[in-house]
């Protein structure tokens, strides 16, 4: 009876879901391409944005147009020479350094006026410039004592930092809701909210402990005209002895949702089942993981792993069962990124 029941269940489970699909495979492919092109457009907007311009102006402002931060390092060193180290015993000396500091490029010295709430640094953006056009402001700084490998480190709990050039904000970062679990000799962060604005890109990062073994990471990025990008990753540990997390054997599952505009990848992996396998086969990887592709909430493909000529590659299986290497969409990803950020990478 029991055996008959089990074989009955097995027979029933071979049926394939009857799904109503409202788009053709050609349209699905086109939508994927459109989304990826939109992503590249967004990167172009970031590359042309005020933050990028500021970085290029301050750190690539030489004849060769290569990265050079020696001027900014020099300015900071002069500040520390006059007012003391900013970091002592792994602790930022925020309270002791409150004030508004202005750099004089002619005398190469800083002057200080009182400021009860913030550390403000005003300085010329580039060398040999008289105009003091950059302003870096740090407020609301608090920290917390943590330990890593028996070393005491004071990590920020809250802060608000803003960088302006000629009165326009080019970068800001706000940290809040940072908490740690100090029950082991490893200070495990259990929550953190980070907001980063690097004109025109706004990014939000949220790290939270859902249960003692479940952690969730959420990353969201958007530009005024571009599509929303989001990554939600959830990690489930096999135990909550954070000091002894040392290998993949300590993880149970990892799941992720990656969204770009209307396109979403939902992926899950059973690390617990895969970790003991030293060299898992394609079947073992695919049987212990699942990745699906959605557009406007409708499933348009499965993503599977296949070894081709000794190299692991990902393929999309479309609604009609046809299969295509993801390289048709992202094969030139590295080159595209290099082209977009050529000012930095060339």
């Amino acid at each position, binding site marked *: 009876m029991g055996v008959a029941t*089990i074989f009955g269940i*097995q027979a029933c489970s*071979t049926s394939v879901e009857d799904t109503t699909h409202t788009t053709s495979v050609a349209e699905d492919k086109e939508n994927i391409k459109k989304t990826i092109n939109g992503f590249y457009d967004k990167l172009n907007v970031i590359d042309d944005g005020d933050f990028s311009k500021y970085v290029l102006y301050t750190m690539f402002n030489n004849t060769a147009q290569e990265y050079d931060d020696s001027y900014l390092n020099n300015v900071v060193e002069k500040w520390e020479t006059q007012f003391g180290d900013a970091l002592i015993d792994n602790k930022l000396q925020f309270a002791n350094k409150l004030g508004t500091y202005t750099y004089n490029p002619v005398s190469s010295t800083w002057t200080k006026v009182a400021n009860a709430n913030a550390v403000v640094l005003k300085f010329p953006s580039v060398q040999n410039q008289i105009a003091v056009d950059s302003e870096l402001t740090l407020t609301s700084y608090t920290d917390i004592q943590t330990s890593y490998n028996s070393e005491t480190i004071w990590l920020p709990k809250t802060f608000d930092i803003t960088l302006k050039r000629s009165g326009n904000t080019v970068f800001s970062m706000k940290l809040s809701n940072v908490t740690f679990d100090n029950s082991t000799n490893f200070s495990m962060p259990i929550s953190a909210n980070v907001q980063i604005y690097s004109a025109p890109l706004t990014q939000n990062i949220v790290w939270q402990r859902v249960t003692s073994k479940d952690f969730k990471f959420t990353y969201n990025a958007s530009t005024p005209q571009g599509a929303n990008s989001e990554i939600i990753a959830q990690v489930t540990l096999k135990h909550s002895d954070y000091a002894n997390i040392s290998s993949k054997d300590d993880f149970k599952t990892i799941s992720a949702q990656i969204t770009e505009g209307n396109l979403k990848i939902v992926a899950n992996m059973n690390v617990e089942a895969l970790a003991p396998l030293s060299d898992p086969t394609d079947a073992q990887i695919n049987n212990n993981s*699942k990745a699906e592709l959605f557009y406007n909430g409708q499933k348009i493909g499965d993503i599977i792993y296949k070894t081709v000529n000794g190299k692991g590659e990902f393929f999309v299986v479309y609604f009609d069962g046809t299969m295509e290497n993801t390289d048709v969409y992202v094969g030139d990803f590295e080159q595209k990124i290099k082209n977009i950020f050529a000012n930095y990478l060339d």
Partner: protein
Amino acid sequence: MKRIITLFFVLFIASFSFAQAEKDSLFAIPSHQVGIGLNKFIKSVFASDDNAMIINYRYTGKNKWSYRTGFDFKKDDSEGGFTQFAFKLGVDRNLKRYRNWNFYYGADIFTRYSNYKNINKPQYDNGIGAFFGVQYFISPHFSISTEPMFYYKYIYIVDRSTFQKDNKTGWSETGLGKIGFIELNFHF
């Protein structure tokens, strides 16, 4: 953990001494036997096995034949949780009884269903195994046993939501199983 292991071996040696006193009389083995894998109690000492069940029942009739069944069940509802159900049926025949030792051979058919909630690709194992059993009676009501097995099983995985035309992945597996797997049995 050390205390549990020590306690187990003290119990074993004490029972062994007790059994030696009765060595020349072949006591009657009760008809019903319920067994649990020792691995379930002390994971670090005793081997586990994919083909083993958590609880086993064996009925011995008046002749040399015994009929066996066993099952395994686990359900974890958490994110990334795991459901497993396994069942077996089998028969074995007594080969030799010598003092507290009992030797037998037989065959099982078994099936196992397992599925990770977040992956939702049910895996079915269907197999058959021929085994040789070695059992040692600590007392008339307690024994330990091991059953090295030669097995063949066909495993297939069904992905109900895939767009792949063939939604089943299957393969067969043959080998020696339950090597070092020890079961603690109660007889009544």
